[in-house]
């Protein structure tokens, strides 16, 4: 009940703040970049509010819970991305003075066609990044109220579309600064309270032979046909189909792999080992030792070291290519302020990421039964009731639900502004405020529909893919555009098409294609390590081959970018 009230509170607060700011949103410039009147501190909080999405609020804790220490590379990469952004492109981009990546592409390389091509990648990255936000909303609402998955998706799509269409960016800047604080507060308070509670009442019984064991009797319904792996023999109560046989009642399972059909209900008794969801060709359940040591959690794919390196590369270089983040520095008054904003952002991010990690660790201790269904993405909001009872649990759940919705709403708003801006100002001519609003509604509808199909993907994995594509498309465009005199629009297009195209194909294959193992699977699942160099090579070769087509005003562009105010 409290949870529903607090979700309602966040939704209403966002809408009211958005509507209030409508009075100030008079011109298109107000809509897109808040007329550049935002102070660095407010802007840093807003950037964090926008950046910290469902991926880090829900997804990170879930990944840590399932896969362990290897997943800590996600927050490190997300933060290091800002360092790369800061030292390589931040001040020059702000000094250049364009509003969005497509506009930078057109201004710097003097090619309207390149602007449209960049806008296409804004859409690809924007929609891919919107999916996990929608999924987060769907599963959170379901976990808290039992509502069907689509209700949460629809709620977020409608609220965000309304906010953005009414207030534009000016509205969401204030809203997002507030939302950063809601998120940090919710996670930090919960993590501290639950950690202290755990040490007071004592953790659930220790793990047996490295396998997680059930903390309290619990019952799980398997949502899709799955393979479970047991490291120790056990007895469970099943109702449904296990290993191809209809079972109702007690069932002894040997150590090893067991197939379970959709709709089967499994009841696990206290103190027994937890069967963990594994891929059909799974390389075994993640025992606790493999969970807390680096480069071990290869239950899903081969070559964990490659996966970690590629993940870091994608997140570090992808941050600068995220369309909804870059537009934010244009709200700083000058290049120096943009830099100082980013330093503040890095501090705020560090203060945030500790908490989801703590919650993920607690989740593995208290709710290992969720490992059975693989449905761990909602662990953050489920955890308080696993550890506490009564009003305390209700209040914490409410707080976390509010934080989670703040995350979905803020990131989705920022993405929607960028996606709508790309549609109304880059892909079509003379888009005014009305065109922007139409684009917003259309984009929100598409994002909602795509979100309905996103349930089977892990939240943070989707986010990681959006980063990988951004790193393979916009990172070369921005880096070479800022620093290289001989960069041409042909080279830029080649980089976008080859690098961004290859990364997108790899991601699509992993999402919808057949399953590959070994090196092929690893290369497709984390493409950044090869697609970023590929993009740079294409951009450089393309530029060298067309050296006669260097932009006429290249010197003046470079001078503008590198001259201090």
């Amino acid at each position, binding site marked *: 009940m409290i949870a529903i009230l607090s979700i309602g509170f966040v939704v209403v607060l966002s809408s009211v703040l958005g509507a209030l700011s409508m009075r100030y949103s008079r*011109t*298109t*410039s*107000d809509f897109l970049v808040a007329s550049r009147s935002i102070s660095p501190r407010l802007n840093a909080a807003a950037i964090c509010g926008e950046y910290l999405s469902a991926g880090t609020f829900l997804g990170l804790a879930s990944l840590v819970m399932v896969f362990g*220490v290897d997943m*800590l*590379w996600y927050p*490190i990469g997300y*933060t*290091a991305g*800002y*360092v*790369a952004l*800061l*030292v*390589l492109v931040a001040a*020059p981009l702000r000094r250049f*003075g*364009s*509003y969005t990546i497509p*506009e930078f592409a*057109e*201004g*710097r390389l*003097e090619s309207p066609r390149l602007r449209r091509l960049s806008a296409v990648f804004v859409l690809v990255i924007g929609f891919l990044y919107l999916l996990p936000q929608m999924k987060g909303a769907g599963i959170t609402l379901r976990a808290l109220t039992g509502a069907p998955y689509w209700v949460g998706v629809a709620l977020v799509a409608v609220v965000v579309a309304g906010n953005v269409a009414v207030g534009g960016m000016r509205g969401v800047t204030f809203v997002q600064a507030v939302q950063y604080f809601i998120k940090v507060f919710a996670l930090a308070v919960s993590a501290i309270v639950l950690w202290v509670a755990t040490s007071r009442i004592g953790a659930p019984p220790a793990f047996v032979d490295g396998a997680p064991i059930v903390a309290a009797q619990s019952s799980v319904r398997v949502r899709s046909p799955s393979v479970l792996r047991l490291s120790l023999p056990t007895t469970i109560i099943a109702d449904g189909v296990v290993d191809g046989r209809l079972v109702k009642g007690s069932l002894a399972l040997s150590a090893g792999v067991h197939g379970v059909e959709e709709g089967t209900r499994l009841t696990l008794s206290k103190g027994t080992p937890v069967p963990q969801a594994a891929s059909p060709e799974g390389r075994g359940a993640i025992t606790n030792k493999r969970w*807390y*040591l*680096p*480069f*071990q959690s290869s239950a899903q794919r081969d070559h964990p070291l490659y996966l*970690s390196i590629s993940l*870091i590369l994608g997140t*570090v270089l992808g941050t600068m290519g995220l369309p909804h983040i870059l537009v934010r520095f244009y709200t700083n*008054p*000058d290049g*120096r302020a943009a*830099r100082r904003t980013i*330093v503040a952002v*890095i*501090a705020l991010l*560090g203060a945030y*990421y*500790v908490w989801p*990690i703590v919650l993920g660790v607690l989740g593995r201790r208290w709710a290992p039964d969720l490992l059975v269904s693989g449905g761990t993405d909602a662990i953050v909001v489920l955890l308080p009731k696993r550890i506490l009872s009564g009003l305390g649990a209700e209040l914490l759940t409410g707080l976390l639900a509010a934080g989670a919705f703040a995350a979905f709403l803020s990131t989705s708003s920022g993405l929607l502004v960028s996606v709508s*801006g790309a549609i109304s*100002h880059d892909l079509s001519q*003379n888009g*005014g405020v009305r065109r922007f609003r139409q684009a917003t509604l259309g984009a929100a509808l598409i994002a909602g529909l795509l979100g309905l199909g996103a349930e089977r993907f892990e939240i943070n994995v989707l986010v990681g893919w959006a980063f990988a594509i951004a790193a393979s498309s916009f990172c070369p465009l921005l880096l070479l555009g800022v*620093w290289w005199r001989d960069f041409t629009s042909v080279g830029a297009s080649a980089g976008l098409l080859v690098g961004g195209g290859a990364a997108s194909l790899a991601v699509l294959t992993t999402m919808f294609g057949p399953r590959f193992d070994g090196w092929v699977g690893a290369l497709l699942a984390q493409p950044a390590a090869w697609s970023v160099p590929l993009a740079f090579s294409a951009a450089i070769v393309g530029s060298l081959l067309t050296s006669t087509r260097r932009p006429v*005003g290249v*010197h*003046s*562009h*470079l*001078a*503008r970018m*590198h*001259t*201090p*105010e």
Partner: protein
Amino acid sequence: MTDRVGRKRVTVTHPMTRAVQSGRSDRTSSVDLRVGVVEVENEDDALVLRSLMQAQLTLALQSFGVLVGALSCVVLGLALLTRLRPSTLETKVFSVPAVWWLLGLLMFPMLYFIAQSYVAQVERLERRFQSLNRDQLKRDQLERDQKAKL
């Protein structure tokens, strides 16, 4: 009265204003290093610009190198330990494995430190450029170019 003959009011702050055309009215430098607002046509301006860009790029690459170096040290260090001395990774500090402290907590102050030190350096660099004599900059750059030829 112009409205009557069919002229529409237009918003002045329209984002279709090409980046290229948007003037830098907010520049407040008192020093004559405002290459940004003039066309860089002559050799002199190009020279000053090259010198400035070179300094900025060197600093950017240095800081990025520090970032990459720090990250690779951690990744490769952990990978080596996993191969050679896996038992050291199980070392616990306050009952939490040391790896978790390193990756979950200590990396963030380190990243902050890299960012902070870059900003301090680049602001110093830009102040120096603004106070330096244009002629001096040109002479320096010419000298460097000459050395590069030799």
